[in-house]
């Protein structure tokens, strides 16, 4: 009986969404059936800050591509659901996208943990999936139709440039500080490997609970070990708290390099509030307004993004996720346009065989669907003033110090860069 009731409720929901779909679609009644691109991206919960800015980028792509006449002459329609930053909602959402909405193209949910439940699904159904900033999501299943939008293939590759910098500064002793949560732990694993590869010694290696408020105790315990380099893997709240604690109680004179994998130091409100506290910090990034990263189209995209960011109540600068989410759209667009098809097998073959031009540069994929050339950059914050968001819009404040291919300045030891 209860099943029947649930079923009725579901049928009503499906009917209602069909009706809604018809109403929404009637504007384009004369046009052809749209190409449906489906994905989930967090609009609530801890991942929603990045999620909202990423969604705006994909909406801009949709508007652009529809302005150019759509894909295969058909308009593009985004089918987007909020996964609430919760992996448990993902299986249901992707089944809905595939089995009810019958989307033509599929993008992964934002972040690694939410992508994990989708991978077996697309492998089993043999579908093309562009992962959305999921780290090493294809390692286990080795699906031949998975492609990543994250410019780093693995945690090791992600951490590597930092340890090259440490080496360059004659660092031998490394301290590692990581939040007890998925991404931070994965990255910390990469950092451990890279430190070991270079013969460096881990003098401090601790994991902290994500809700930690005060980091002064940890920093004191760490300072005693006199590390040359400190690698932090954290999330926005704790990253900001750690950077502040470093200014307040210091990390000692031994430290030549401080930073690593702190999520959140790319976000406009966090950067603006921390201001000069950030000086000298060396952190990973995906894109900053430096000469070496001026790929065709990126500045015009960011101008349009920033114009719409205020109304959408999202990150005002949009340097981190948005250009790469726009690039996801471009990957799909180039493959569909070139193959004149929505056949996932053809699209995957095209993406494997060809260079894809995006606003974040030309991308080639390896057999795992990861970028064959890592493009994760490390930037050093320099000469920042307080309470000024506009300073981040120009070059010279977030200097690319690694890798060599995109370098716009030499690394300055932590203490010197803070003066």
């Amino acid at each position, binding site marked *: *009986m*209860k*099943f*029947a*009731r*649930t*079923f009725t*409720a*579901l049928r009503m*929901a499906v009917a*209602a*969404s069909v009706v*809604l779909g018809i109403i929404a679609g009637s504007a384009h009644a004369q046009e052809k059936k749209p190409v449906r691109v489906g994905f989930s991206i967090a*609009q*609530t919960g801890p991942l929603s800050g990045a999620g909202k800015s990423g969604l705006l980028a994909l909406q801009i792509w949709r508007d652009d591509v529809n302005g150019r006449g759509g894909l295969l002459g058909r308009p593009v329609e985004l089918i*987007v*659901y*909020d996964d*609430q930053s*919760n*992996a*448990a*909602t*993902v*299986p*249901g*959402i992707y*089944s*809905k996208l*595939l*089995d*009810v909405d019958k989307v033509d193209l599929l993008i992964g949910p934002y972040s690694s*943990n939410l992508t*994990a*439940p989708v*991978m*077996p*699904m697309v492998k089993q159904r043999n579908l093309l999936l562009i992962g959305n900033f999921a780290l090493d999501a294809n390692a*286990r299943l080795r699906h031949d139709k998975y492609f990543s939008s994250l410019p780093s293939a693995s945690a090791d590759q992600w951490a590597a440039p930092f340890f090259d910098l440490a080496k360059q500064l004659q660092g031998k002793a490394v301290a590692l500080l990581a939040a*007890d*949560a*998925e991404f*931070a*732990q*994965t990255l910390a694993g990469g950092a451990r490997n890279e430190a070991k590869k270079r013969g460096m010694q881990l003098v401090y290696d601790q*994991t902290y*609970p994500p809700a930690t408020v005060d980091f002064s105790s940890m920093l004191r315990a760490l300072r005693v070990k006199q590390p040359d380099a400190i690698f932090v893997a954290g999330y926005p709240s704790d990253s900001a708290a750690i950077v502040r604690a470093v200014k307040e109680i210091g990390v000692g004179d031994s430290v030549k390099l401080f930073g690593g994998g702190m999520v959140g130091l790319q976000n406009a409100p966090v950067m603006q509030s921390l201001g000069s506290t950030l000086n000298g910090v060396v952190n990973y990034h995906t894109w900053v307004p430096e000469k070496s990263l001026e790929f065709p189209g990126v500045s015009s995209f960011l101008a349009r993004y920033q114009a719409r960011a205020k109304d959408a109540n999202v990150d005002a600068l949009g340097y981190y996720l948005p250009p790469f989410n726009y690039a996801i759209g471009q990957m799909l667009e180039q493959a569909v346009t070139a193959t004149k098809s929505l056949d996932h097998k053809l699209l995957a073959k095209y993406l494997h065989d060809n260079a894809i031009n995006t606003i974040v540069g030309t991308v080639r994929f390896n057999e795992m669907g990861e970028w064959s050339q890592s493009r994760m950059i490390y930037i050093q914050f320099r000469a920042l003033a307080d309470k000024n968001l506009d300073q981040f819009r120009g070059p010279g404040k977030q200097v690319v110090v690694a890798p060599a291919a995109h370098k716009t300045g030499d690394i300055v030891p932590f203490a010197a860069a803070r003066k």
Partner: protein
Amino acid sequence: MRNWSRFLIGATLSVLLALGLTRFVGNEYFFFATYVVLQFIVLATAWNILGGYGGYVNFGASAFFAVGAYCAVALTQSYALALPLQILAAALVTGLLGFAVGALTLRLRGIYFSIATVAVAVICETVIMNWSFVGGARGTTVLQPAAPAFFSSYTRLLFFVMALLALLAVAFARFVETSWIGRGLRAIRDNEEAAESVGVPTLKLKLFAATASGALMGAAGAPFALYMNFIEPTSAFSLNYSVSALAMPLIGGSANWLGPVIGAILLAGTQQIVTVTISSELNVLIVGLLLVVFVVAAPHGILGLWHKLVARGGQRP
């Protein structure tokens, strides 16, 4: 007795219906969505045995759910146990956890007990976070095996298994409610000292209810990793499970076994629908509004409202 035979007929029909659905419903999404609703029926029904009948508000349902899920994962990783055995083992472990929580009622009552269950949940989560064998904070992939012969997909099998679990949980709750155990628990809820003084074996009953409730909540969590093909602590220990486990019986009506079922279908069903329709911050708003409106408008749940309406209707000429 006649009531029981009617219940048994209903139960048998439900099993056949669930089995039939796995054969004749073509749309896979139906099974993904109903699985979640069924899972909440088990969770809410299990919670209600201690919380609704006995009046001890367990605020750590997520811990039982997640420990059940992780127990299944650990056993799959090391012994490749079959699904029914995983569920059984999970129920055993969470039953023990329930027993321990039940022992807390020896000294703690009311909100003190609830806060103690929160503490238990935090400790369990920290242990899992630090246990690298099951993936720690990073989580671990647990791939579904090939679907067995009768079912065309593994998710359909999970749906059927969860339907059976839901039936089992409901039948058990109904048994507890209608037997002397239920009477004893209600006496404890209304006035524990008085119950004790008239010879109700309060401690035994509380331990029994806590153990059974815990075991069923763990069973609800056991197939979770297989449903997701993956498991990680943040979603397994989600506050959502703790809130839902108490909100659903409350919305449906916690005095009767049917209450949690109605509440789970309503709340979990709404959440499922909202997730794939409105799908924005408004889904948090809808859950919030549902909670406020129902506890205000229907103090004894939907069932209470229903009885009131029927009673009023009966008085009319």
